[in-house]
């Protein structure tokens, strides 16, 4: 809700990630306002002109120490709630890989993205694959796997409206998933510094309805323009 | 002019000994880092057992024996120092230093052999670790030999005998690192 006011939520797990953020926000706001409030109150109340002589308090006695002990146990309890919420969402987004038959291949390199879409036959590494630089086209409400690669250094595939980020590591293939839930055209970022062109690696994701997506595939499949087939190797 | 600061010992442990333990603790973390990295790599790459088979175990064993013996002479040097026998401590320290030099000489023959047979630091990651870890260790051996000679020169004249123990502690540490390196680089094949 709070993040959504600034950035649309366009994936099935965006709301869940936003929920964890907001849970933290409310807990933190409570503790922050309480601590700062007491802090400034004490400064005002015990200023020299209000309080010319200070008390001698060691803080070691139980009735004194409890003012510290009880709050910090309460902090621990809040932390437990946050951990539970965080771990649940983390599992769903990063550990789990729900099955699907659609995979897009993402190749990051200095300093551009190469997206390989499976094409009308739905399979990667076939003749009708659609390879685009800096444009990723997906269909709304469809579960996709992504296969993330890097050709050279570390990059990071980041789609703010999905709330998704994942580092790309050369020499490894990293799998993940997303289900787009909102049509539109949005930013893709590289979120791991990758050299002097790091700021030039913006790309766009096009989340399309079924009709739009089918017609895009029809117009773009390899009867027409195509990029270097070498970028399809993606190891 | 020494400050009063280092003539007192509230904790009961002499300051020089505290200092050398600090140095050793830092070194343990440094070598620990290298060894942990080596272990993680090794566990992840089965091929390494094969690469490691090309190290020469008997040479490593010889060097281990040399270092252990030199640690023994360092202990004996300390005993002499405790009894106030400066020249005796100096002699035994020189034996220790000689052990260190033999170690380095043996290693240079070993490395010359390996490099001439194509096993260089860039051959593969096992060899990168091998030369880096053993090389860093060898640098510490050389540094230890140099300090030992300085301490021995003073001990011969009966001065600064407390430093015999200190350099001895350092030398045992150098020995200990090798005791870890030897099985990892030479035995686990």
């Amino acid at each position, binding site marked *: 809700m709070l993040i959504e006011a600034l950035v649309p939520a366009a994936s099935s797990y965006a709301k869940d990630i936003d929920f964890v953020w907001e849970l933290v926000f409310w807990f933190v706001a409570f503790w922050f306002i309480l601590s700062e409030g007491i802090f400034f109150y*004490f400064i005002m109340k015990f200023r020299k002109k209000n309080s010319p002589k200070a008390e*001698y308090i060691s803080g070691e006695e139980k009735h004194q120490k409890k*003012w510290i002990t009880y709050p910090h146990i309460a902090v621990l309890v809040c932390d437990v709630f946050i951990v539970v919420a965080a*771990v649940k969402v983390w599992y769903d987004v990063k550990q789990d890989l729900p099955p699907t038959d659609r995979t897009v291949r993402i190749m990051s390199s200095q300093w551009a993205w190469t997206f390989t879409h499976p094409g009308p036959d739905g399979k990667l590494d076939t003749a009708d694959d659609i390879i685009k630089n800096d444009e990723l086209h997906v269909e709304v409400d469809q579960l996709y796997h992504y296969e993330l690669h890097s050709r*050279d250094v570390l990059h990071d595939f980041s789609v703010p409206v999905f709330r998704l980020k994942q580092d790309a590591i050369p020499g490894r293939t990293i799998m993940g998933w997303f289900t787009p839930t909102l049509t539109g055209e949005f930013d893709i970022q590289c979120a791991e510094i990758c050299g002097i062109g790091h700021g030039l690696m913006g790309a766009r994701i096009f989340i399309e309805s079924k009709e739009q997506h089918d017609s895009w595939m029809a117009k773009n499949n390899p009867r027409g323009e195509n990029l270097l087939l070498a970028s399809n190797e993606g190891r | 002019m020494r400050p009063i600061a280092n003539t007192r010992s509230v904790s009961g442990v002499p300051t020089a000994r505290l200092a050398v333990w600090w140095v050793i603790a830092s070194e343990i973390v*440094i070598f620990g*880092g290298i060894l942990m990295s080596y272990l993680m790599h090794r566990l992840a790459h089965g091929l390494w057992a094969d690469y490691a088979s090309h190290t020469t175990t008997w040479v490593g064993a010889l060097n281990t024996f040399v270092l252990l013996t030199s640690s023994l002479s360092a202990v004996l040097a300390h005993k002499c120092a405790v009894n106030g026998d400066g020249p005796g401590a100096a002699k035994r320290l020189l034996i220790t230093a000689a052990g260190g030099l033999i170690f380095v000489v043996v290693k240079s023959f070993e490395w010359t052999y390996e490099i001439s047979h194509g096993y260089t630091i860039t051959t593969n*990651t096992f060899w990168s670790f091998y030369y*880096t870890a053993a090389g860093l260790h060898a640098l510490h051996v050389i540094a230890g030999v140099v300090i030992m000679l300085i301490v021995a020169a003073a001990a011969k004249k009966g001065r600064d005998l407390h430093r015999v123990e200190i350099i001895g502690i350092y030398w045992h540490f150098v020995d200990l690192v090798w005791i870890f390196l030897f099985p990892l680089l030479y035995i686990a094949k």
Partner: protein
Amino acid sequence: MAETISTHASHDEHHDPSFIWKYVFSTDHKMIAKQYMFTGMAMGLIGAFMAYAFRMQLAFPGMDVPLFGLVTPAVYNSLVTNHGTIMIFWVAMPVLIAAFGNFLIPLMLGCDDMVFPRINMLSYWIFLLSAVVLLTSFFVPGGAFGGAWTAYPPLSAKAEYSLTPLGSSIWVVAVGLEFIAFLLGGINFVTTAMNSRAPGMRLYDIPIVVWMIVIASILFMASVGPLLAGAAMLFMDQQVGTAFFDPNKGGDPILWQHLFWFFGHPEVYVVLLPALGITADVICTFSRKKLFAYRTVLMTTFATGVLSFTVWAHHQFVAGIDPRMANIFTITTLLISVPIAELCFVYIATLYGGSISLTTPMLWALSFIATFLIGGVTGIFLGASGADIYMHDTYFVLAHFHYTFYPIAIIGTFAGFTYWFPKMFGKMMDERLGKIHFWGSIIPFNAIFIPLFYLGVAGQHRRIFDFSNYPELATPEMQAIRIFATVSLLVMLAFQFVFFYNCIKSWMSKEKAPDNPWKANTLEWVAPTPPPHGNFKELPTVYRGPYEFSHPDRDEDYWPQNEPA
């Protein structure tokens, strides 16, 4: 009965040394402290200038920055890289640990110098060398390293990726030398604190700031080793052609990340602890109160130190580590918020029932608590793995760590500097100028970084020289916020001139400061102002703890440690 040990301050053991031995190659801990302080502050100016240049680029992209020139993408990356590197390694550490540590530890413990003065001097010169080495990287072909202060390979390991063949290696060597300097320096802090305490000074009579600096040194020593090894490996990948971190030849880039962050996380506590210590001493003096639950503070600090070794991979949640590992690290990371919260509560509790004077040092110390609280609570968002998926690499992270580092390195430093200036330089600082400097720094500081939290939540990510390539980030509203933050920085930088003017004016003033202007209890205030070589005429004996303010059995509201019962 007091033990009178005469120091070599009380008899002329050696005639007054020449300029070079007194000011340049000095082994006196106070001179070494000042050397570290001035070098650290000078590097701070350089780091601040870099921030000026890159923030001007962000506010007015593509325009020539006055006094600098054009900030190209390559220049931008090397500016942000070296800003971070310099501020942590060449400002926070030397000022908080080496400068304050060197100055205070022998004085507060009641002895005449560090245990190993020549090693102390050596550590400074290695440190200075490391700073010079780093600065040369700006003048070599290819320019300074630009792969972020985290220096992840393969970018940092291969010149064909970084395009800074010399700069990358110079950076690694400089950082390695800095580590060695601080390892050497640590020898003195730990041995002096353990062995050279004044007679009667039990462990619980040691001022908290000394404990904090000693524990910080131990944390540093226990964590830096793997990174020093990693730095050697990175250097070899760069120059010799090894492949420790090259995945094409059997290496692993993630290994570097683990080595880096295993050190990197404890490192933030290494710099936090001295700032906490300085804050404690200042708050106690200006609220005339004993530190609340001193023993708890110590135990909590130990616990924090130990826990700090278990949280590192929260920097690597989305880095491609095994996702199951993330769960362990989110638990440990949130757990560490508990002792830190406890420390904040203790400081607030210390104010209760006090008699608070809002002097310049006290303003800084209080603002440390107020701003560090923001840094601490915003860390929770990032420690929660599920939320970090979105927050990683955004300006939210950046604002979080500036709300921890700025309080630590800048606020903590000014608190300590304004508090101990009378003892260090023998003159009082101007209170009015001090307050102007304080408000002129604190308000703009918040004006810079609060908006950056907002920008981070709105999706703005880090280390980008120009956001025009990202339509959702290139809105007029977001650009207006960037300009606002930059202007706030300009204001803050302008007010630093007030500080420098105050320093020079105060130092040159004819009026000498009294020995104990703040009426504090710790032993440094017993020594003459400024302390001579050897510190004390007679080494003191200690009879009580360091914070015996407002004791009911006394008329005076303070009770120096060395005053007999």
